[in-house]
């Protein structure tokens, strides 16, 4: 075989392989696909071996076999991965009962769970475990042991519940370390690992979020304008094909009908004229009210946190449960009561429902964010107080050390090589560690939030549903239709809640960042000016990370735009070709149109009823004349004349039925067929439902 022939053969083999790979994208019938596939595979097998010669052949065959094995392995791995996805079955059930938007909430939840699991793995594996394995029995520095005074009460449940006692000093709360660079046998660099893990977690969560955002932006089309295809989309994409439950189906019908009615009303309203000034005034008023509410909630939190600091000064025994948990209680209550308040105020604004929803979500977001930051702010004061105390203790410790050394010198007449004071770690005095304090506060907040959520779900949804369903038999008005009725699944509210719980965890890590850096630089000196904090690498590194991630995101978005551009160009080209063909009255050269034609039902399979026989010939021509775009190729394919390998060629294929020259007559035949359907022939008149 000559070089040229071999090259051509290789090219054909490649083409056949490509055909096999893209076969699932083609809109062919299964039979055609199977035939095609067998053909291609035989061709590839026959000629692939022939391409290699001598030693080259063996290597080539080996490569091919490895490629096949690799593909098989990948496929098996994909199957395995799909089977491993947790809760997939349950989510599909939820989807069929309640529709896909509710299920999307659970998919988001599952994703977050995975993310948190990974973060936990990082922290646990890289920080906690080395500490446990390789640190001294009670941690590397004396701070980590329970002070003797507290030891008596350390195991009490109430203290544990508040995360004091053993919990406080347990492995889970380590936020500090000594100035030794490495610990243990393996010389594990603990301080460095703290720092890196802290930054790593922060960066990782951001990166994952942005990567998912970019991927979704790509798939979701080019984010086209809202108003462009409203009715068309409603018509063609509103039905949820995964619904399998009759009740859900009824709900879906009702919601689709409502949505259409809404759009119609919208359309009519656009032509109406409204009093602009009144509207603007009302909207301004509503925004003012909401701002006041937000400010009020911020102040309330600040006030409560201050009070809790006063309580901390008092003795534990004197406080009631309410006073001890006031902060968390207040925050959860605010989160519960404010959103409905916002909704009522928003009635003033008279926005389109979707826009109103956006405003509502934005306000709830502002509320939660404000609450979180106020909380942090209030805690900072506490931190300052603790720092002051630390300084005192440090001075006291230094003084004690000096005393000890002096005494030792006095008694033993040595000035060098004095052994360090032999005090049991539990007795070493230490000041309060503010990181732990703040960490404890956050954990308590999260836990109380969870408790409140459980309670609300239990009472608000479950009890309510039970009451409504059973009381309905003996109540005056229809409980199910009017108040209180079943609670709706507030998707957007729940999603927001999820995000905020996540945010609280991340809030804690961020603080560790800043602090760890300062500790790294000079251990005893906690006092730094604001300036030194700002130029702190601990702050600069997250900033750089954020910028890198922003670049990544913008890059992904620009790729999506490029893809959209290419699509548009292809469409324009297709339209131009069609136009040209239509003008020249040739058969369509478009591959897609040809494929579509082949998919039309095979007329020969329909048994023609006896009296209608004379209409057969015009039927064929009528079909060919339906539109100039539709080629007569359908006839040949429908007769099962076999399948040609269709290459993407831009030559006009021969039109077996001849040029179409009689549109009007055929149309007439078509029209004749319309109003007077034959007994079994007119497919579209078959009874539905």
């Amino acid at each position: 075989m000559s070089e040229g022939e071999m090259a051509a053969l290789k090219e054909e083999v490649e083409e056949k392989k490509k055909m096999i790979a893209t076969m699932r994208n083609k809109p062919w019938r299964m039979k055609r696909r199977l035939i095609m596939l067998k053909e291609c595979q035989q061709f590839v097998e026959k000629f692939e071996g022939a391409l290699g010669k001598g030693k080259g052949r063996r290597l080539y065959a080996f490569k091919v076999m490895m490629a096949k094995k690799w593909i098989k392995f990948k496929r098996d791995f994909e199957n395995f991965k799909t089977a491993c996805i947790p809760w997939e079955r349950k989510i599909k059930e939820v989807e069929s009962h309640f529709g896909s938007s509710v299920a999307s909430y659970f998919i988001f939840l599952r994703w977050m769970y995975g993310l948190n699991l990974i973060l936990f793995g990082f922290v646990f594996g890289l920080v906690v475990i080395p500490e446990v394995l390789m640190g001294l029995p009670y941690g590397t520095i004396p701070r980590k042991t329970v002070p003797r005074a507290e030891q008596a009460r350390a195991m009490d449940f109430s203290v544990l519940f508040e995360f004091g006692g053993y919990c406080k000093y347990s492995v889970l709360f380590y936020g500090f370390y000594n100035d030794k660079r490495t610990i243990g046998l393996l010389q594990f660099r603990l301080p460095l690992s703290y720092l890196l893990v802290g930054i790593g977690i922060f960066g990782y969560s951001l990166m994952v979020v942005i990567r998912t955002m970019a991927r979704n932006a790509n798939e979701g089309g080019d984010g086209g304008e809202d108003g462009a295809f409203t009715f068309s989309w409603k018509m063609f994409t509103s039905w949820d094909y995964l619904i399998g439950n009759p009740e859900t189906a009824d709900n879906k019908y009702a919601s689709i009908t409502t949505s259409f009615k809404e759009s119609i009303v919208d359309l009519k309203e656009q032509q109406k004229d409204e009093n602009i000034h009144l509207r603007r005034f009302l909207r301004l008023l509503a925004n003012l009210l909401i701002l006041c509410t937000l400010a009020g909630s911020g102040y309330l939190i600040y006030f409560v946190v201050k009070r809790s600091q006063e309580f901390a000064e008092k003795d534990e025994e004197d406080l009631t449960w309410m006073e001890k948990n006031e902060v968390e209680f207040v925050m959860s209550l605010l989160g519960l009561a404010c959103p409905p308040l916002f909704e009522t105020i928003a009635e003033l604004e008279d926005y389109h429902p979707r826009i109103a929803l956006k405003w509502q979500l934005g306000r709830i977001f502002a509320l939660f964010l404000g609450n979180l930051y106020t909380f942090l702010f209030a805690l900072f004061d506490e931190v300052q107080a603790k720092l002051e105390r630390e300084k005192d203790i440090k001075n006291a410790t230094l003084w004690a050390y000096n005393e000890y050394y002096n005494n030792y010198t006095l008694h033993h007449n040595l000035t060098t090589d004095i052994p360090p004071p032999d005090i049991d770690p539990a007795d070493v005095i230490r000041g309060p560690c503010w990181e732990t304090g703040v960490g404890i506060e956050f954990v308590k907040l999260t836990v109380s939030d969870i408790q409140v959520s459980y309670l609300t779900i239990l009472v608000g949804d479950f009890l309510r549903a039970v009451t409504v369903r059973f009381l309905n038999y003996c109540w005056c008005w229809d409980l199910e239709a009017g108040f209180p009725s079943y609670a709706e699944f507030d998707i957007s509210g729940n999603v927001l809640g999820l995000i905020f719980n996540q945010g609280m965890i991340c809030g804690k890590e961020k603080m560790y960042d800043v602090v760890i850096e300062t500790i790294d630089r000079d251990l005893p000196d906690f006092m730094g000016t604001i300036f030194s904090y700002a130029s702190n690498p601990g702050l600069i590194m997250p900033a750089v990370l954020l910028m890198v991630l922003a670049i990544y995101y913008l890059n992904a978005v620009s790729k999506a735009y490029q893809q959209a551009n290419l699509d548009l160009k292809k469409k324009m080209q297709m339209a131009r070709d069609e136009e040209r063909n239509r003008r020249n009255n040739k058969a369509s050269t478009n591959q897609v149109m040809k494929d579509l034609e082949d998919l039309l039902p095979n007329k020969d399979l329909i048994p023609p009823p006896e009296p209608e026989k004379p209409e057969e010939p015009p039927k064929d021509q009528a079909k060919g004349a339906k539109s100039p775009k539709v080629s007569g190729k359908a006839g040949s394919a429908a007769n099962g004349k076999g399948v040609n390998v269709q290459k993407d060629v831009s030559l006009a294929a021969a039109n077996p039925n001849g040029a179409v020259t009689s549109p009007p007559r055929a149309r007439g035949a078509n029209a004749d067929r319309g109003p007077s359907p034959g007994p079994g022939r007119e497919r579209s008149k078959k009874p539905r439902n």
Partner: protein
Amino acid sequence: MYNSYCAIHAMLTCIILSCPVCVCCSRRLHGRYHELAPHLVPMDYTRNPDVKVPLSLIVNMPELKENPFRNRIVEAFSEDGLGNLSFNDFVDMFSVLSETAPRELKAIYAFKIYDFNVDNFICKEDLEKTLNKLTKEELTQEEVDLVCGKTIEESDLDGDNKLSFADFENMISRAPEFLR
């Protein structure tokens, strides 16, 4: 019991569809197909029997029962246009309806489904039928006319007052919720 035809078919399906339709899935599909008409569908496919399950049995499957377009869906995948599916068509239908099918393929079949009078265009009558099925005929005639008119106005690019495949594809490829 599951003989060579099934195995070959499964393997080919697997390769073609490149989706997790492994041998067990294909068997399950065949099981479902058989369940629809046990007296009609043989367990043994070696002789390549030309068996078709009629429309009325297929639309009662739980996956399709609640779908307002179930009749059209089954008709769109049948070779004779009347809704009688052979096993190949059956597999075809589920593979396109699955989540892993590519967007273009779904667009093509969606066009076929909504084209009630099978003339390769979606005209006003097709739209009216679609709308009535979606809303269970709750809208008044005037509203129906308005909606259909707006739809054609929005999507018709070549100005022939009906939607060709190009118009449809252009519109649907931008829809955010299309994949289902």
